[in-house]
C-alpha cells in the first residue's frame, strides 16, 4: 500500500509522452521532423516547450514566426491549464504518444491567452495559489509568507524540484486540528460537453456536524450528471491525474495529495469510452 508521501511524488513526477508535429500550412525552408518529448503532468505547456520551439525554428525563417501555440485535433490547447489536465480532458482515451500540432501563425485571439514570457506563467501560477489559499485559509497562510517563499514555490515548479517546492507547499496544506480540514476545497471540474469551461463553487470538506465529505458528495452537489445511477451503464469518467479515484475518497485527502502545484484539484469529467 503506497504511503501518502509516495502519492505526492507520483503526482509530481507524472509524465506524458508527446509527439509535436508542425502544422502543415506553416512556411518552412525544408521539411520539419516531428519532435518527441516527455511532458510533466503538473507543469504548463509554454514552460516546458522551449526545445520544441528551437527545433522547429531551425527550419523556419524568423519573419514567418509569431507566438507559438498548440492544438490537439483542432482544439487550441490552453497553456494556462496544467498539461496533465489538458491530456485527461482531450486525449485520455487516445493512443500514446499524445499528438500535438505546433503553430506559429494565426494565434486564436479569442480562445487562447497570450504567453509572451515566463513571468506571465509565474503570475498565473501564483495567482492560482493565492486563490486556493483564499479558499483554504482566508489567504492567511499565503499572506504570512515572504516574497522569497513565493519565489521558492515558483522556482520549485519551474526547475522540477520536488523537495524545494514541498518545503514551502506543506505550509499551504496545514489546517487547525480542531477544524478537521480546510475552510473550502479549491477545485475545478472541467467539462467537455459544455460551453462552460469549468465549474467552481464553495464546498466544505467537513460538514458542520463533522461528516467527512467525499469526492462523490462533491459531484452529487455540484455536478450530479457525472455520477450515473446504478441501473445505468457508466456514462462518464471522473479523472484526476489520469486516474479515476474511488468516489468514496475523502475530499480533504484528495485536496492534500492530488492537488496540482497550484493547490487546485483539477477534475476532468469525460465521456466513458464505448467499447
Amino acid at each position, binding site marked *: 500500500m503506497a504511503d501518502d508521501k509516495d502519492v505526492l511524488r507520483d503526482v509530481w513526477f507524472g509524465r506524458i509522452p508527446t509527439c509535436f508535429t508542425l502544422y502543415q500550412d506553416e512556411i518552412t525552408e525544408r521539411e520539419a521532423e516531428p519532435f518527441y518529448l516527455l511532458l510533466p503532468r503538473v507543469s504548463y505547456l509554454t514552460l516546458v516547450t522551449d526545445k520544441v520551439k528551437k527545433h522547429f525554428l531551425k527550419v523556419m525563417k524568423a519573419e514567418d514566426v*509569431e*507566438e507559438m501555440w498548440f492544438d490537439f485535433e483542432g482544439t487550441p490547447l*490552453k497553456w*494556462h491549464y496544467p498539461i496533465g489536465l489538458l491530456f485527461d480532458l482531450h486525449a485520455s482515451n487516445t493512443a500514446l504518444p499524445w499528438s500535438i500540432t505546433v503553430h506559429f501563425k494565426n*494565434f486564436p*485571439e*479569442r*480562445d*487562447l*491567452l*497570450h504567453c*509572451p*514570457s515566463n*513571468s*506571465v506563467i*509565474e*503570475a*498565473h501560477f*501564483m*495567482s492560482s495559489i*493565492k*486563490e486556493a489559499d*483564499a*479558499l483554504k485559509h482566508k*489567504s492567511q497562510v499565503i499572506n504570512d509568507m515572504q*516574497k*522569497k517563499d513565493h519565489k521558492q514555490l515558483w522556482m520549485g515548479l519551474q526547475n522540477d524540484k520536488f523537495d524545494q517546492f514541498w518545503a514551502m507547499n506543506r505550509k499551504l496544506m496545514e489546517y487547525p486540528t480542531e477544524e478537521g480540514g480546510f475552510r473550502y476545497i*479549491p477545485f475545478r471540474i472541467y467539462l467537455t460537453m459544455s*460551453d*462552460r*469551461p*469549468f465549474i*467552481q*463553487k*464553495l*464546498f*466544505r470538506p467537513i460538514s458542520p456536524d463533522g461528516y467527512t465529505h467525499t469526492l462523490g458528495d462533491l459531484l452529487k*452537489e*455540484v455536478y450530479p450528471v457525472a455520477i450515473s445511477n446504478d441501473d445505468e451503464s457508466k456514462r462518464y469518467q471522473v479523472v484526476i491525474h489520469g486516474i479515476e479515484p474511488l468516489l468514496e475518497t475523502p475530499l480533504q485527502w484528495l485536496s492534500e495529495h492530488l492537488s496540482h502545484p497550484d493547490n487546485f484539484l483539477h477534475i476532468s469529467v469525460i465521456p466513458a469510452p464505448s467499447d
Partner: protein
Amino acid sequence: MSSCFLDEETFCQCCQLFLQHSHSLCDGWSWEQVKGSEEGYLRKTALGTGRTRCNQDQQGTSSDQHQERTFSLSFHNDDDDEDDGAVCCIQEENSSSSVVQYEYHILYSCSYQTPVLYFRASTLEGRSLCLEEVWDSVHPNYRQRLQHRPWDTITQQEHPLLGQSFFVLHPCRTEEFMKPVLKAALEEHRQVNYIVTWLSVVGPVVGLDVPLSYCTQVPEPPHTPSSSPQPPSSSPQPPSSSPQPPSSSPQPPSSSPQPPSSSPQPPSSSPQPPSSSPQPPALGTKPG
C-alpha cells in the same frame, strides 16, 4: 450589509437592482444567465477611446521581445522589496487614439466573495486589443495605481463562464477599498448597493463610467433573516407584487442619501437565483 464580503445571492440581488436603474437610464446593461444554471453576470458593450497600434496587418501581435519588455512591469521579478520597478511603456510612436469597442462583464467570484470586472476591447474592424494597448488606454490618472500595486493590475484571464480570453482587474484587494465604505455606511445608517459602490471604484480605471444617479437611486437588497442584524433605521422595503418603476428624473443628491420613497421596490417578482447547493451561511456574518 455589515461585511465587506458579498455572498452570491446578495450579488445577484444587487445586480437586479442595478439593472433596473440601468434600464431607466438606457445605460445598456443586461443580465446574462448561464444555460442550465442560476448563475449569471452583468454585461454591457460601449464605445470608448483607446490607444491602439496603427498599421497592423495581423491581429494585435507585436514581437515576443516587445511584449516581454512590457510584461516585466506587472509582476516584479527583482528582489528589491521597496520598489516593484514597474514601468509602463507608452508606445507613442506607433500608436494613436482611436475608437475602441469595449465589452464589460461583472461576474461573481466565490473564491474572493466579491464581484470581478472582466472586459475585452477591439477596434472597429474587429481586431482584439492586446494587453499592451489596453495598458496604454488606461487613463494616466489611474496608471500609477496599477503600476505600484501588482494585485490591482490588469491581466489576461480566461472568462470562467465563457472560456474566452478577457482582461481582468484582479479582485483580491477589493476588500481593502470596500471595507471602509461599508463600515461608514453602516455607522451612518445609509444604504449601499455593493455593485454600485464597487463599480464606481474599478470601472473608471478601464473606461467604464458610472453615472451619479446610480448612487442615489439604487438601494441595497432587502435584508434576509440569515444575514447579520442591521440597525433599525434601515428597515427593509415593504415587498410589492411588481417592481415599481423608478422616478423618471434623478433626485438631486442629498447630504445623507436615503433612497426616496418612490425608488424601486425590491424586485420580488424578478428571478431571484436561489443557491442551488446548501452553501455555508451568508458570509456577511464573518468579521471583515
